[in-house]
């Protein structure tokens, strides 16, 4: 650990953590805890707002002064297993997930909190990697992690590491992204391939010896949303297609707007590897989780502009229109299959379990 570049500033008050793994003492409120917080987290997150180490972050931003600006606030907990997986780790999804929850509402994400629950015995080096990864994702998204908390629980009371992030952002005056605004004729667009995160996690769990190269799609999408809003100012709404996949996101929108949504199976962007994993395990990629995929609805005359703007960015280079809102079957999502048959895509019931044969 000595050859580790020290990225902290002289403000650090705790000492260097000397142990290999976390013990209950690191949650005890004393020096060991201060060492853990300062050496692992504060030094990685390092930013002007976190430095004062008061019990709260104190925040100022010009965008908040604008008349009509709205504050956006969201929170999410992350419990992924394994903690590190191809394409990311729990820290990266904790930052991206919260940033994306703000961004799909049209908010400019500004500040995040991070609370971690650590199982006794977790390696300090793993925590360092996760903290650095949170910082890297925060830098990519242009946000600061300004406050946080750590708790240590006994072995068996948590699965390694749980992370909760909350986020604050500002919605500039005039932006009204809302699922209820979707109208028949609007075009549904996704920014990239579906199901990569879900498939990467399944493969990384290793209990079925699948050797694949699939990486999680985990990425912040706020720059993409800004590009869309600039190119297609009347974008109706966007949803982050995380748990429950694209199917759940589309159902929520169909229900909120009381429109039908018709998607085309042949238009769905899927990697052959993800299709393969789904074939083998009997899963449906429409229900697999994504961490860097959103679906948005735009008026049809702005669809091309939105697609062009999205494709100019790395996280949007595979952007494609997948269907439309219709006045048929309000509240339902219908997919036109390869053969032209219709299939109703319902919300996921319970958990997706592999089929027996």
């Amino acid at each position, binding site marked *: 650990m000595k050859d580790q570049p020290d990225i902290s500033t002289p403000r650090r008050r705790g000492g260097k953590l000397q142990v290999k793994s976390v013990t209950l003492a690191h949650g005890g409120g004393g020096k060991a805890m201060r060492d853990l917080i300062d050496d692992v987290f504060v030094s990685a997150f390092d930013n002007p707002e976190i430095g004062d180490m008061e019990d709260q972050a104190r925040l100022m931003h010009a965008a908040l002064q604008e008349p009509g600006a709205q504050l956006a606030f969201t929170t999410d907990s992350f419990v992924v297993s394994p903690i590190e997986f191809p394409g990311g780790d729990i820290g990266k999804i904790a930052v991206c997930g919260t940033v994306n929850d703000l961004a799909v509402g049209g908010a400019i994400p500004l500040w995040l909190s991070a609370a971690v629950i650590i199982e006794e015995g977790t390696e300090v080096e793993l925590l360092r990697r996760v903290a650095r990864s949170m910082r890297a994702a925060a830098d990519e998204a242009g946000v600061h992690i300004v406050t946080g908390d750590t708790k240590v629980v006994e072995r068996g009371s948590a699965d390694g590491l749980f992370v909760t992030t909350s986020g604050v952002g500002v919605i500039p005056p005039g932006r009204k992204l809302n699922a209820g605004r979707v109208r028949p004729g609007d075009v549904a667009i996704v920014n990239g391939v579906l199901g990569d995160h879900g498939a990467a996690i399944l493969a990384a769990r290793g209990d079925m010896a699948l050797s694949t190269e699939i990486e999680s799609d985990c990425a912040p999408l706020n720059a993409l949303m800004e590009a869309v809003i600039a190119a297609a100012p009347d974008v109706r709404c966007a949803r982050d297609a995380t748990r429950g996949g694209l199917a759940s996101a589309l159902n929520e929108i169909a229900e909120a707007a009381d429109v039908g949504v018709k998607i085309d199976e042949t238009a769905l962007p899927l990697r052959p590897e993800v*299709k393969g994993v789904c*074939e083998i395990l009997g899963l449906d990629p429409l229900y697999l989780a994504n961490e860097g995929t959103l679906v948005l609805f735009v008026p049809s005359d702005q669809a091309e502009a939105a697609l062009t703007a999205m494709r100019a960015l790395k996280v949007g280079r595979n952007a494609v229109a997948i269907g439309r809102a219709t006045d048929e079957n309000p509240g339902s999502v219908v997919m036109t299959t*390869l*053969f032209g*048959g219709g*299939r*109703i895509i319902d919300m996921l019931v319970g958990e997706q379990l592999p089929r*027996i*044969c």
Partner: protein
Amino acid sequence: MKYADEFRDPVLARALFARIEELAAKTGASRERPLHFMEVCGGHTHSIFRYGLEELLPDSIELVHGPGCPVCVLPMGIVDDCVSIARTPGVIFTTYGDAMRVPGSDGSLLAAKSEGADVRMVYSPLDALELARRNPGREVVFFGLGFETTMPSSAFTVLEAEAEEIGNFSLFCNHITIIPTIKAILDSPDMRIDGFIGPGHVSMVIGQAPYRFIAERYRRPLVVAGFEPLDILQTIVMLLEQIVEGRAEIENQYSRVVPEGGNANALAAISKVFELREFFEWRGLGSLDHSGVRMRPEYARFDAEVKFDTRNRRIADPKSCQCGEVLKGVIKPWECKLFGEVCTPENPVGALMVSSEGSCSAYYQYAGVRARALRAEARITAS
């Protein structure tokens, strides 16, 4: 995707649909008096719904979704036995994913897991055996279920446990066998099946000879079918050709996988380890003679039924549940009084709502647009 997309080609599918249309017209069937084809296997049901095939077929052909979803036909009493084994201290209870959600009278295996039982999902009984090797101090039980498709892997696992003397592994054997089930459907007085889309994976193990009685004694055609949409459409063409030509034969559409005589090694392992039970209780169909297998006494030390006190309780299906009629093609899922109101995938009352391969659940979740319209129509007529 290689080796799959070839069997999903929309252009070829259109040619097959046209051929089906043409042949169906020659049979004289109509919307009022349609031909009923049963797909026995849940894998076929799943493909039919996934690709929306049903609503693209002419009105004169109705597909009846048969009993081939092994999860759906599990009786509550067996799920209760599983839960009771799983709750035994020291036990690691393993099974296939979708068996974990089947409700017993005292909850599912998923519920038992949430209450602290060590229940784990595996993809093969060999994974369960590996768990037994790695946990010599624990008893690892594998809940084996399914037709002849999954039976060989259970049998080979028991033989491997025997060869390696792994004493802490046992099989809770609830495998079922396809032939008596088809026979029960053919013998039922309200039967109205005109032909069978035969199970592909089962046939890969048992071959085609066991089906001959269907053609010879009952004069019904059966075509062993693959699971891709083009396989199923070609099978329907082959069934229609037989009907038009007045034949009733056993044919094989899935010859790229299914050999005439089945798999001799798999059959040998099955008969070495398993023997027929006198009867087996099915959800929805009741008790069927010789429709299940148990472990032979020579393998008693790997038999969870011997190691644990399984009570084999019989819990009757709810009276209002019409799964039996749906299975035999007498009524459509949405014609059942419970469908979609009392009985839903979240809270299944009957067997067929349990797994995504069950026809009621498939209708509820995946139903084609036409099926939803018919369901609405049926509701209006009924009220």
